[in-house]
């Protein structure tokens, strides 16, 4: 089980070593200590390994992740798991702005709160935030699910495309073209799956959530909608 102390060796060495791992590596579990808010820790991983980081990370931790599991035992800076393709990123603390931005797949779990623009432009990722999320979250979100156990800030889902938003608490306001939609059985099942994947099976009931999605009135530009933009 390799371990790496970022206080005694540069980030470049860590990322180089992680990038060099082949899919059949037997070095499957890594521990990183002393992150001290460094940026781009474990960014660009492409192997089915797990990396456990003991402390707070800076911007873009696990950016563009593929296949790997990255666990942050602390808080995460801007853009954690941005553009993730697959795998799992789990932040035990809070996450800053743009968590899971543009991510195409995989799962991002945030045990605490997430800042503004959580899930901005998301393209297929499943995000579960156990706390609350900030304003402009899921802006232009295209695909995937954003599940929030707490509250959502202003302008949730502004200019939303096909992503599905599930919020248990209050929503301060909805953004342009984002509307509340009925929770049908398929949504309850989908939400139950996401909650179970985030380790919340039996802890919270899907029936406590409300669903938000796109009204699809801005899908084709029309001058009559100019005031909505």
């Amino acid at each position, binding site marked *: 089980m390799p371990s790496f102390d970022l206080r005694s060796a540069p980030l470049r060495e860590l990322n180089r070593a992680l*990038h060099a791992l082949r899919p059949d590596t037997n070095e499957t579990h890594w521990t990183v200590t002393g992150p001290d808010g460094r940026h*781009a820790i474990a*960014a660009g991983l492409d192997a089915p390994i797990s990396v456990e980081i003991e402390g707070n990370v800076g911007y873009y931790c696990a950016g563009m992740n593929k296949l790997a599991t990255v666990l942050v035992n602390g808080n995460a800076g801007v853009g954690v798991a941005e553009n993730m393709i697959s795998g799992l990123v789990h932040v035990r603390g809070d996450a800053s702005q*743009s968590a899971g931005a543009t991510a195409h797949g995989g799962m991002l779990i945030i045990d605490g709160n997430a800042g503004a623009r959580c899930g901005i432009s998301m393209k297929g990722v499943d995000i579960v935030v156990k706390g609350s999320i900030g304003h402009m979250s899921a802006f232009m979100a295209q695909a995937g699910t954003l599940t929030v156990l707490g509250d959502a800030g202003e302008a949730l889902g502004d200019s939303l*495309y*096909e992503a599905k938003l599930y919020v248990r608490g209050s929503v301060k306001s909805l953004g342009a073209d984002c509307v509340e939609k009925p929770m049908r059985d398929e949504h309850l099942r989908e939400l139950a799956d996401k909650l179970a994947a985030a380790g919340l099976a039996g802890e919270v009931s899907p029936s406590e959530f409300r669903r938000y999605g796109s009204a699809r009135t801005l899908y*084709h530009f029309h001058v009559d909608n100019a005031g909505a933009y």
Partner: protein
Amino acid sequence: MTDHRQPPRTKPRLSATFTPDVMSEIRRAAATGIYDIRGAGAKRALPHFDDLLFLGASISRYPLEGYRERCGTEVVLGSRFASKPIHLKTPVTIAGMSFGSLSANAKEALGRGATIAGTSTTTGDGGMTPEERGHSKTLVYQYLPSRYGMNPDDLRKADAIEVVIGQGAKPGGGGMLLGQKITERVAGMRCLPPGVDQRSACRHPDWTGPDDLAIKIEELREITDWEKPIYVKVGASRPYYDTALAAKSGADVVVLDGMQGGTAATQDVFIEHVGIPTLAAIRPAVQALQDLGLHRKVQLVVSGGIRSGADVAKVLALGADAVAIGTAALIALGDNDPRWQAEYEALGTTAGAYDDWHEGRDPAGITTQDPELAKRLDPELAGRRLANYLAVMTLEAQTIARACGKSHLHNLEPEDLVALTIEAAAMAQVPLAGTGWIPGKTGM
């Protein structure tokens, strides 16, 4: 006595303010209630490279022999931090244009032509297609605000990464690919349903400002193990500060796109009224690099209305390291060719003026996703035409450089140039022809 003959009348007088073009646009706006969207760059007359002349050699300096003495054209981009900088045979590169706005055949043709010429081509919004990667020896991968089709595998397959902040046709603007061009393949690459208008954001979703950009560049370098050159592309608006901030943020290369640079689809009012001409942008950008001690260490690529080897030579003489062409490359492929005149007329336009690229009905099969129209463009033949054109541009630039006594295109310098107009003299910071006067710099 009354003169019963018809009195002389004032000749009918058209307004210089309300020209026929202006009036037709007012009528169109009144009828539709929506602004005009089109492709291409600024069409109005602007101070441009035609307003500059080379002096050539004479007694005070001597020329190189046209068909004997070597004049180098090669350029290295990305030598500042990247472990694998790009080596090109010509400083004329192909600018970013997306699959989606262009057909797959057109993208393939750009790759083929660029590869024959020994230069690079560039992806656009919407990601990298296998055809494009396969046919481009050197491919620059654009990293755009929308992140459509963005994935780390393609990032690692690229030869360089271009972080797009803006483009000359619309500094500060995003984009919109209209639904009629969104086929299943285009939609699939962009993770959206077919037929839906696709907005491209004007700001990146996960960073704001130069301090964040530096961290974003660091992330891209970490993901690609510091191998790939990282370009930063900006639309020309405040070129001194934008170039300085891009360099400060850690860019290897700054791409500076003037307002004549094309777009796939933007509001006409944006294209014609936001940003500054290419000619006016170069010297402030070069000055920024010189002030930082980074001129020639951070390379400067200039685009926007470059059409000939003369334009290339002038851009390099003003201090850039390379140029990029977009609209000119499309014309070389066959865009706006008079052979399709009857079809242009059926679309209410004429060869040379067709700019409704966003509508996807391009008779030349270039700015379309219609399979029947796209078939009209043979990617091999079109690629050959582009390669020929790139060869001509390079030869023309060499011809001028030799006449100025330069053994490499990069040895051209502002001292080789004069301006025909006061505006061009001020913008290019070279003397008005026949004088020693550089407006704002020297006395008469």
